């Protein structure tokens, strides 16, 4: 009998959730252990998936279909290909690391870990769903765990940040739903199967309008300027592990959706708006970089750098060719690891120094050589230093967009310079200089290191040898582009 690998990966966290539900709320240790196991198993399964993956075929693999809501034509339809595989890997990995990093949560751990696991189900489901209703439900499923996670365990302005995130994202989701329903109707096929809808020959106006509607939802998630204003607040107020998942995974849901739904189902729609998308992408890059430069709060700085990096991702997507889109996917994978790391480190620094204000930090190399060292390395990766993974992604994106949007590529490259500017300056302000007196002077312990080392290893490895990820991405992207017809 075939093992439904994808269903297992998606729903094992749910089993973990139920187990936690029945555990006593005072048995913190047990709750945390169960949660970590429930997050580790999907990661292991995802790695097995990778080893079993056929790198030569561009189509969907490990497909699982079942009847679900026949009356409206929604089916339970999961599949994975070169586009979703890296994202599933990064999701399972980051969730596990985020849970390990959450070991010290003592305020209502039962609900915290339960919500995190529920979040994982939603995130993985989004990347695997190939039926629009299923996709929509998983997409929405991530909303309310985030609301609680930010609102209960967050910083001083957590209530504001949480409700802003919820309403803003929901607003986008409404338009997403409208777009989906529009496609459903005008295809006349009475199905929500993404592939069937893609082949149904939707007319150009339908494609354009539904893309616009859905794009609003995606754009809020990515986030693209000017729909990014929920991000800084959400990131700053969220607890560390939640920020890791927010930046590392949730933002990717937007980028993935542009590729998967935009290119697959409404290719003419996305092509019609590729140019405006590129414009917004470049604005995001520059705006995000400059905004990061003036931040005093370390987490806010990282948040704006996320906006800037996702701008690169969007530029690659808007370029509509193999290099651009592959670069975007790779960069999404990278950004997950890099920015995930940055937030983990910011959390560690905050725990030790009790501040996130950069002017109050400084000289971290002295008391915390490990943390400061890894932080510097990660910052280098974020600015795209060659031999680290960020460089490969950015290179591919710029190569792809150079042929299509020459001017934008130049501007984006300038964006790299600005990024280098604020990143290096941050390293200098935070890690170098005279050491200050900090309360809790011990460096990263083995548990914290265990969350950092895997990510650093990946960042360095992919930086030198990106093929393991690229060979996964290339076939699927090539097919997607050729089917959509290049720009």
């Amino acid at each position, binding site marked *: 009998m075939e093992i439904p690998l994808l269903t297992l990966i998606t729903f094992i966290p749910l089993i973990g959730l139920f187990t936690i539900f029945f555990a006593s709320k005072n048995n913190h240790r047990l709750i945390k252990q169960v949660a970590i196991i429930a997050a580790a198993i999907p990661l292991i399964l995802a790695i097995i998936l990778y080893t079993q993956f056929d790198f030569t075929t561009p189509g969907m693999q490990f497909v699982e279909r079942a009847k679900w809501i026949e009356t409206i034509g929604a089916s339970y339809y999961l599949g994975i290909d070169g586009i979703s595989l890296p994202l599933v890997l990064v999701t399972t990995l980051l969730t596990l690391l985020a849970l390990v990093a959450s070991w010290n949560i003592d305020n209502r751990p039962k609900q915290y870990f339960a919500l995190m696991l529920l979040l994982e189900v939603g995130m993985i489901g989004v990347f695997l769903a190939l039926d629009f209703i299923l996709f929509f439900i998983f997409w929405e499923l991530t909303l309310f765990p985030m609301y609680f996670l930010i609102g209960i365990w967050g910083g001083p302005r957590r209530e504001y940040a949480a409700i802003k995130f*919820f309403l803003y994202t929901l*607003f986008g989701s409404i338009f997403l*739903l409208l777009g989906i*329903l529009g496609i459903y109707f005008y295809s006349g096929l009475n199905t929500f199967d993404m592939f069937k809808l893609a082949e149904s020959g939707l007319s150009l106006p339908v494609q354009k309008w539904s893309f616009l509607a859905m794009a609003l939802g995606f754009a809020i998630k990515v986030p693209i300027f000017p729909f990014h204003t929920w991000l800084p607040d959400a990131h700053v107020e969220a607890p560390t592990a939640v920020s890791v998942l927010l930046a590392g995974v949730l933002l990717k849901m937007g980028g993935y959706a542009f590729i998967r739904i935009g290119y697959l189902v409404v290719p003419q729609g996305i092509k019609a708006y590729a140019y405006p998308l590129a414009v917004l992408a470049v604005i995001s890059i520059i705006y995000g970089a400059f905004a990061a430069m003036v931040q005093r709060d370390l987490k806010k700085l990282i948040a704006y750098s996320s906006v800037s990096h996702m701008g690169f991702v969007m530029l690659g997507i808007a370029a509509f060719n193999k290099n651009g889109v592959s670069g975007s996917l790779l960069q999404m994978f990278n950004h997950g690891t890099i920015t995930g790391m940055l937030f983990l480190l910011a959390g560690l620094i905050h725990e030790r120094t009790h501040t996130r204000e950069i002017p109050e930090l400084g000289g971290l190399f002295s008391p915390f050589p490990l943390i400061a060292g890894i932080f510097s390395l990660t910052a280098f990766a974020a600015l795209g230093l060659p031999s680290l993974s960020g460089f490969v992604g950015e290179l591919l994106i710029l190569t792809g967009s150079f042929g299509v949007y020459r001017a934008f590529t130049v501007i984006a490259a300038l964006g790299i310079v600005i990024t280098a500017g604020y990143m290096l300056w941050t390293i200098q302000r935070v890690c170098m200089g005279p050491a200050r007196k900090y309360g809790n002077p011990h460096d990263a312990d083995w548990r914290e290191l265990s969350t950092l080392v895997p990510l650093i290893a990946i960042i360095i490895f992919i930086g030198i040898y990106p093929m393991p990820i690229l060979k996964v991405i290339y076939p699927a992207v090539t097919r997607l582009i050729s089917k959509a017809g290049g720009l």
Partner: protein
Amino acid sequence: MAMVAAGLLVLLADLVAAKEKNRLLASLSLGGIALSLVLTLTLIGTKGTTLSKMLTVDPFALFFKVVFLLSTFLVILLSLDTLSPPGSRPGEYYTLVLWATLGMMLITSTTDFIMIYIALELISISSYVLAGYRRLDPKSNEAAMKYFLLGLLASVITLYGFSFIYGFTGFTELKSVAQAITPQTGRIVITLGVILTLAGFSFKMAAVPFHQWAPDTYEGAPTPITAFFSVGPKVAALGVLIRIIFVGFPVFKPTWQLLFIILSIFSMFIGNLLAIPQTNIKRMLAYSTIAHAGYMVMALAVASERALTGALIYTIVYLFMNLGAFAVVIAYTLAGGSENIPDYQGLSKREPTLALAMAIFMLSLAGIPPLAGLWGKLFVFWAAIEENLIWLAILGLINTLISLYYYVNVIRYMYLMEPREKKPLAVSLPLKSAILIGALPTIILGVYPDPLIKLSQISISAFLR
């Protein structure tokens, strides 16, 4: 017909039994409902009329009967503890509830105006008394008075509307009426009749602008009765309107479609916007039900087969999530809490299961997947898009967003704040069962709505033949 028997039985038992046999009477009532439910289910598949063509049996009627029976079952569970204190006179309470339910079942099973009116009065009069059941509470009296005076006016207007239609066509039976009119003849008279009828039933549904009684009545009435009103009469009005409009006046579609659209838009916006500043949870839920009436009326405005299917789906998910929410309110009030929303703060720490249940109901009312409330809204909005009323669907979606604010507000108090006292709450078994009965379908139907969808489709397609 079992309902008649049950009602009579309870009344008799109340007279005969010892003064305060609350549990016994409740059990009798529940038993009667269960029996009715079983009998109703055995009628599935049959079609016909009885009582000299006054009553019809079709899947549409059966669907609504099941809805009312389920709703009343839950309401009685909710009422058990409220009626425990001495001097509560539970016998008459249960009898009135059963009579009202009977009225509701009748009103959706008939195609004759006279029968409709009789059933309407049966529902209304029972409701007036039930609203004022707490004779010593001035708020309850106020609730009853407002409901009675305005309700009387509404009933009279409805009757006036009927009289126009009868006067013009000479018939009281819907199908005959439909055959007697054409779009050209008697246009003004019929339009007037339809408008008046609509007005009367919109009152019952608490649709804007006929909703003014609802917040005060909902707030003042005993909470189980509020819960009863929020589902029963509203759904009954919806059902009978569907029958009247679609059987009797399909030719006048442009007229009533416009009316329904206006009703729907106003109800949604006013309901949702006015719910935001409320601090009393019963009033908030009252405005929320006004908004939900708006969504249901949207289905009538769209008037396609899919829209009506959506309306039916909506009634079932609405029944569970709304009664569930009220169950939590009753549980909290009986355990010592107040009706003020800020008083719910920290409930998640004091009584996590109760808070979780409320959170589920709030999110489902807002229409968040993967809970059942999503499907009701989805179908209705979907139907609107299908019939080229996209802008109406967009308005509905905007309203969903607005409503989210006040639903999440409750969740915010329960989860994001610290409780003032730490001790856990005592929740009785009937209430726990009611909450569970509300919560389980809300979750299960949210993930697997297919059976419900199929059921609704069958009911509607049979109806439209």
